[in-house]
């Protein structure tokens, strides 16, 4: 096997933008269909050998952005550069980019080999080289014995691999993948995720993956771009997106979050205090926040970042303890999710790891409990 190429995942070039040139530059790209903006003023830099995920719901503009990179749609305004070259006027068949389609788009009248060889033939490669390259790709996706089959004789997972091999055949600098695992069932999807990452690391090709599945994005990506209504809501590494969301949209979209409204009462460089009538207590945050006194803002906290107890715990700075009653318990095996009703009527979701087997002393329905959290457990959000 070839030596593992130097990968973006190891060097993280996006953390040092002064010394690293982005491989794909998307500058202020807008795409309108009639009066509707599918993509609005998107700017995005993607670095060589990244595995970048565009994550968003349907209609978020992620697929349109991908199709503009492939050249199937032209931006209404803005520019797309790949490897320093402006791609705006370049038709899809002349771009150093290949795409793996959501439907796979395997040519039904050609065999697996012919499908993979199609792009190479268009480049006018000599026959022997095409044959060698096809064999190499079939080995890469473990379909050596299936070259002569037609697409309709393959299973869904095999088709997916043929589509990948065909898209990789021309050794593109940039591979676009539109919901690459969307058509596979859950079990196969999990296996294929790791295979995809392995192939990407082995070849060092830059991948841009469009997906609506956040778990998939978290597993695959070096970085994720969360899209909402045609705009990029946040760009960051998976941990940034989950632990430090920049907006209420991202906090709610990725995983689940409790969202609480509050007003700033103390605004110091090393901490802030937020009064929340919904929680019935103050929130003490252990870092400064860029805000004005008395400003209304939101505080988001993940269910697993909070703790439940029957006895009233020691308050932190006289804050961070809320009181409520257990209303619902969802037992999921590894964890249990409790829904707590506070006095204000606000409901919090708190998850607890089930460390004790068949715990007879577990907190149960109708019990009064205290909910606590650390001073850096939640995110303060102004938008």
């Amino acid at each position, binding site marked *: 096997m070839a030596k593992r190429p130097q990968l973006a995942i190891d060097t993280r070039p996006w953390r040092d933008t002064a010394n690293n040139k982005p491989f794909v530059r998307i500058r202020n790209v807008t795409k309108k269909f009639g009066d509707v903006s599918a993509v609005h003023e998107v700017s995005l830099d993607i670095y060589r050998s990244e595995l970048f995920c565009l994550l968003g719901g349907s209609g978020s503009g992620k697929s349109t952005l991908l199709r503009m990179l*492939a*050249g*199937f749609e032209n931006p209404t305004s803005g520019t797309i550069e790949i490897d320093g070259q402006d791609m705006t006027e370049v*038709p*899809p*068949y*002349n*771009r150093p*980019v*290949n*795409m793996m*389609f*959501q*439907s796979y*788009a*395997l*040519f*039904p*009248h050609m065999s697996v080999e012919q499908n993979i060889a*199609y*792009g190479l033939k*268009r*480049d006018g490669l000599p026959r022997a080289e095409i044959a060698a390259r096809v064999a190499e790709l079939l080995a890469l996706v473990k379909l050596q014995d299936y070259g002569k089959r*037609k*697409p*309709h004789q393959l299973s869904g997972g095999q*088709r997916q691999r043929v589509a990948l091999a*065909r*898209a990789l*055949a*021309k050794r593109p600098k940039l591979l676009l993948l539109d919901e690459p695992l969307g058509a596979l069932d859950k079990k196969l999807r999990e296996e294929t995720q790791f295979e995809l990452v392995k192939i990407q690391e082995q070849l060092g090709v830059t991948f841009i993956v469009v997906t609506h599945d956040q778990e998939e994005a978290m597993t695959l990506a070096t970085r994720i771009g969360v899209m909402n209504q045609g705009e990029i809501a946040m760009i960051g590494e998976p941990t940034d997106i989950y632990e430090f969301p920049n907006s209420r949209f991202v906090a709610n979209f990725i995983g689940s979050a409790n969202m609480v409204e509050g007003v700033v009462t103390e605004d110091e460089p090393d901490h802030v205090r937020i009064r929340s009538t919904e929680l019935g207590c103050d929130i003490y945050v252990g870092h400064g926040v860029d805000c004005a006194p008395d400003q209304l803002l939101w505080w988001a906290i993940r269910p697993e970042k909070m703790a439940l107890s029957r006895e009233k715990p020691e308050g932190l700075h006289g804050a961070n303890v809320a009181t409520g009653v257990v209303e619902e318990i969802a037992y999921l095996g590894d964890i249990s999710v409790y829904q707590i009703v506070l006095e204000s009527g606000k409901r919090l979701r708190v998850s607890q790891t089930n460390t004790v087997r068949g715990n007879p002393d577990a907190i149960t329905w109708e019990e009064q409990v205290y909910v606590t959290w650390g001073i850096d457990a939640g995110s303060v959000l102004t938008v």
Partner: protein
Amino acid sequence: MRKGWFLPIAAALGFSFLYAPIVSLVIFSFNENRLVTVWSGFSLKWYGELFNDPQMLGAAWLSLQIAALSATIALVLGTLAAVALVRFRRFKGRTLFAGMVSAPLVMPDVITGLSLLLLFVAMESILGWPQGRGMLTIVIAHATFCTAYVCVVVQSRLGDFDRSLEEAAMDLGAPPVRTFFDITLPIIAPALVSGWLLGFTLSLDDLVIASFVSGPGSSTLPMVIFSKVRLGVSPDVNALATIIIGIVALGVLAATIIQLRSKPRTQI
């Protein structure tokens, strides 16, 4: 679902209504008697008579030529029209174009025939072309209404066509025209074949339009048959009908088998 007795019986009666006259026609083509409906023994003599009738043979040959030519012209025009209608979402005059393509489907034959004849006469007096009427004018007339049929058949095939197949080809380096010949054409080929066959049989079958736009000495097969059967039943027409029905039945059978075979392949 529970099945009643009504539907099967109704269907059986319907199908016997469709086929009984044809079957009796085929049977009586082997009848020895000149009186078509009185059976007097098996004979092939009407087939022999048919093949010794130069008028009939000449008309058949002319009709076959016309059918092949007009089906081919219609195939090209109808496919182009279908591509335009399915692929070009918006263009100036799209509604008018769509109307022009599909109107010949339902236009009564007498109107189509009369209008084309009047056009040819007017063109001849103004442009000097086409000189007189005959095979050329029939081919033009048939190609025009067959275009509509080809267009409908190809349109429905292109409608189910997965556009990402073409995008994939372009993505792999094929320019649009190359993509059309490499990907689109092979996949819609079954529709093209059935479109051509449909055009061919419709042209072979047409009496009214051909009667208007043909000239002296260019009688098509339906015109000859019509003038014969107008005077009464003639056994050699039975023989001819049997031959045509046989050929068509084989053709449709073959086409159906091809389509059924190609179905799973093209539905990916």
